[in-house]
Each structure stands twice: as structure tokens, then as C-alpha cells.
């Protein structure tokens, strides 16, 4: 087996001194993320978070119970679901009740077809258990119970 002859040709290059020589370069653009409130409880949380500064994130309420239409937070514009998922990296569904189960199924299926990662946040509420059951089949990752701060942290962490 060939033996390393330079520090940076072996695992010792992970020292603090060598770490200084790592290449610094601009990070890739932020991720395109869509955040959808699935019910009235979730709507207030999503509205609050939409007011923060984000890069390529968009925030929605349900425009129709089946989730095929969404309403953009802020403008109130009604848009069909499918085009809003084009080029998207991740969809975060937020639920406080089970009211959005049908919409979660629609959005989840649409994401599966497009290969879009799904995440779900279940707000801490009396109906957490029902909301969880509604979201579980369609969210690759679930955080439960969650609150507005969790949503902010998740979006920041994934550079939304």
C-alpha cells in the first residue's frame, strides 16, 4: 500500500492548522422551498413566518380543500398547485388539525411524482394526534410537536 508522503495526502490533514487551507468559495444559491398551511391553525403560523426575509421560499394557504389550488400569503393570489412545484427542492406542510388531510395527500402525491422532498410540521395543539395521522403518509420528515420557531429554524437550516 502506498504510504502518504505529504500531510494533505493523509487523514492528518484534518487538523485545525490544515483546515485553514480549505478552499473558500461562495455557497450555491438558496433552495427553492414551498411552505403550505393545511388548516386555519397552521395559517397563522405560516403567515407569521412568511414575514421574515427569505431567499426563494413561497408561502401558501389552501385555496381549495383538495389542495389543487393554493393561495399565496401576502398577495392572496390563487394559483394552481402543479406549476408552483416546478423546480422546487422541498415542500413543507404545516398542520394543526386533520382538516388538511385531503390536501396533504394531493400535495404529497404531486411531490412524489416530481421527486420533491416533503417535510411536515405538526403544531402543538389539542388536535396534534389527528393532524399527525393526516400528515404522516406524505411527509418524509415530521417534526412534532412544532411551533413557529421550529418552522423558522428548519427553513434557515436548509437555506430556504
Amino acid at each position, binding site marked *: 500500500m502506498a504510504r502518504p508522503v505529504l500531510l494533505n495526502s493523509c487523514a492528518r490533514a484534518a487538523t485545525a492548522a490544515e483546515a485553514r487551507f480549505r478552499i473558500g468559495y461562495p455557497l450555491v444559491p438558496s433552495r427553492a422551498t414551498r411552505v403550505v398551511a393545511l388548516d386555519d391553525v397552521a395559517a397563522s403560523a405560516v403567515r407569521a413566518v412568511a414575514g421574515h426575509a427569505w431567499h426563494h421560499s413561497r408561502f401558501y394557504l389552501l385555496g381549495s380543500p383538495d389542495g389543487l389550488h393554493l393561495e399565496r400569503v401576502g398577495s392572496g393570489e390563487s394559483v394552481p398547485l402543479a406549476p408552483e412545484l416546478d423546480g422546487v427542492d422541498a415542500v413543507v406542510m404545516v398542520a394543526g388539525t386533520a382538516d388538511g388531510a385531503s390536501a396533504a395527500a394531493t400535495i404529497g402525491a404531486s411531490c412524489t411524482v416530481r421527486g420533491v*422532498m416533503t417535510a411536515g410540521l405538526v403544531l402543538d395543539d389539542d388536535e396534534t394526534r389527528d393532524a399527525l395521522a393526516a400528515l404522516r403518509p406524505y411527509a418524509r420528515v415530521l417534526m412534532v410537536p412544532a411551533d413557529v420557531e421550529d418552522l423558522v429554524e428548519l427553513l434557515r437550516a436548509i437555506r430556504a
Partner: protein
Amino acid sequence: MLRTEINELLTQTGPGTRMGDLFRRYWMPALLAEELPDDDCAPVRVKILSERLVAFRDSQGRYGLVDEFCAHRGVSLWFGRNEDSGLRCAYHGWKYDYTGQCVEVPSEPETGNFAANVKLRSYPLVKVGDVLWTYLGDPEHQPPLPEWEFVRVPGEQTYTSKRWQECNWLQALEGGIDSSHVTFLHSGNLNTDPLFKGSKGNEYNKNDVKPFFEVAENEGGLLIGARRNAEEGHYYWRVTPWVMPNFTMVPPRGDHPVHGHFWVPIDDENCWVYTFDYHPVRALTTAEVDAMKAGLGVHNENIPGTYRPVANKDNDYLMDRDAQRRGEMYSGIKGIAIQDSSLQESMGPIVDRTKERLVATDAGIIKARQRLRKAALALAEQGTPPPGLAPEHQRIRSASIVLPADQSMLDGVRDAVVARPGVAQTTV
């Protein structure tokens, strides 16, 4: 990603830092009991939370953990003589008892009180199970002794090892709550390692390599569930508990012993990984203990006489490219512990989290960092005691279980994740 100041807050644990103050609210593993095997045995240097200390066991079996350096001229007491119920400095013979109290200064008159006014900083050192625990915080806030099941079961039911990992404690801990890496990095071990193989759960693992994750708040920390398809209408759940700040467990497989880790900061660029295996209701077999001592399961083989792994960064972790090509080991590195440490050390001593690109499946890590940050700030700003101190937070287990698809993870594992004496682990 994290902002620089948050990364520093979470990774710095020395005296006077906010995370250091948080750690100083808990009992922490300081040594294995085997390191101080006899009365008057050789003292041991201990560095923990960036404090340099020396541990010794006096003539009466009492454990002392005191400032490493003699109050006289700053000589390391590791060179000292452990004799007649005290540790005597090899330079001028100053002698200290297990509390750090100076009891003899040979150059001073015997009738004087010079020695009585000299005391080294000292901390309690208590044996619970096979581990010597210390508490580095304010005595006024000292919590009850540790209640972790691995140190509370009878001695023949538990085994603990220890290894030095050359990186910050947080990136080591984050490996413990990152369930999604197991499918890749550790994929070669499930069917061959005697401490894992043969369980029904392994089949579920193999048949569904794209698990769903559920990150649930628990009183002492988090429960992180990985969900895979099982029989029709059922899911196979593997539930990993994290208890603040640095305790994690691995979900069990069959009737194999249950295992987990403590990730203890040595300083900001090194940590001790305490790795335990225990069975709640039976003695470990000779074969199991032999396998653990040989470095199988989640343990590792250390350089004899040390706690440094045989496979380490000086030898590229004994990388075996042929085994990697043959598919025996995903990364070409042997053993789960070193598979983890090799990659975590490769990130550098303290990884720059401003440059990472997390994805949604990193939700457990995201949530754990958030809870650590909030707890450290609440302690610093309001004096709020952090989670994980209460004995009931420590009476916890990992679990693996098959549940109906419509049953919530939290409902399904509520009893299974509570450690109860005499009750076997919930496992598949």
C-alpha cells in the same frame, strides 16, 4: 446551516462559556472505573470540559478529582506519589487529600497552619456502575446521581468501553442522532456482526432503504423515529432517544444487548466517546463480552494501554479499498465506531457549520441544536435549569417496534422508551 456565533455557542464548553455552563449542570463520565482499579494505584490525568485535572484513588478507596497542578510551583501531580491517603507532589513533597486539601508541606513547620490554607480546585468523583462520574458545576445545583439504566443494572449485564475522538463533541453527537447515515455508512455490518445479526428488524432495514423520519419532543430531549415498511398495514419503527446534552442510544436488534453513547467534551477539539452495551434482564454472555472487547458492535479496538483507537487518523483508519470494492464495508473502514469517527474527524476539529447544506432529513440535528441553544441561553439569562437533569429523564431506552400504520409513534412507544427494572427491551 448555523451562524458563526451559534456554532461557537454550541461547540465551546470551557469554563465561562454558555455551553460549558450548561454541561456543568450534569454528572458527566470522567473515567472508566477500570482506570483506577485499586487503592493507591497510579493517578490518571483527566481533561474534561477544557479543565486539566488528575484523578486518584486513595488508601481508603476514596476517589479524588483535583486540579492537575501543584499549588506550589505548578508541577503536574500526575508525577506524584499516591500514598497514605493522599497524592504527594514529586517535586517538594506537598501532599493533598482526595478533596484537594493540602495536608502536608514538608518544608513548613509541622505545627504551622500553612497547609490548611492551601486547597486545590476539586470535584466529586463517584462510581456508579463501571463509570466514575464527576460534576463540575456549582455544588448548590448538584443534581441526583445518574440514573441511566446502563449503570444501574447488575454488573454482569453491562459493559462500557471508551475511545478518544479527535473532533468537537457536537459533530460526534450529531452522528448519534443522524439516523439517515446508517443505511449507507454502516450497511455492511448488520448481517455479519455477532452483536447485530439475525434479527427480524435487519430484514426490514434491508428491504426499505428510504425511511421516513419523525422527530418528536420528549421531556429530556428528543425521540427520533425512523419508519420503514413492514408487513401490510404496518411500519417498523426504530426510535433513538437523545437526552440533553450528550446522551444517545441506538435502537435494539433482536435479543442483542442495547447500546448507546455518552459524547463528553475533552476540550473544544477532542471528545471521549463512552460506549455502552447492556441487557435489561439478563447477563451478557461470554461471547457477547468477548465480541465487545474485540471491538465489534459499536465498540472499537484501542491501542493497548490507551483509549486511542488502533485505527486512527495517523494510519488513515486502516482504510481497506479492496473490502470497499467488494461491498463488505461501505467506506472501506472496519467497525461502526471507526466508520463514524473517521468521517467525523475528517470534517476538522470543529466543523464550520456556516458552510453546510442541510436537508429536511437532518431535522433531528436541526431540532437538537435548537434545543441546546435555547437551553444554554435560558440558563445564562434566566437561570433556568436545563432538561435532562431529572432522574425520570434518564430512565429511558431506545426501542424497535412494529406498529399498525395508523398508530402514532409516540403512542406506540410510550411505554417502550421507559427503562423499567426487570422488564426487557422492546425490540424486533
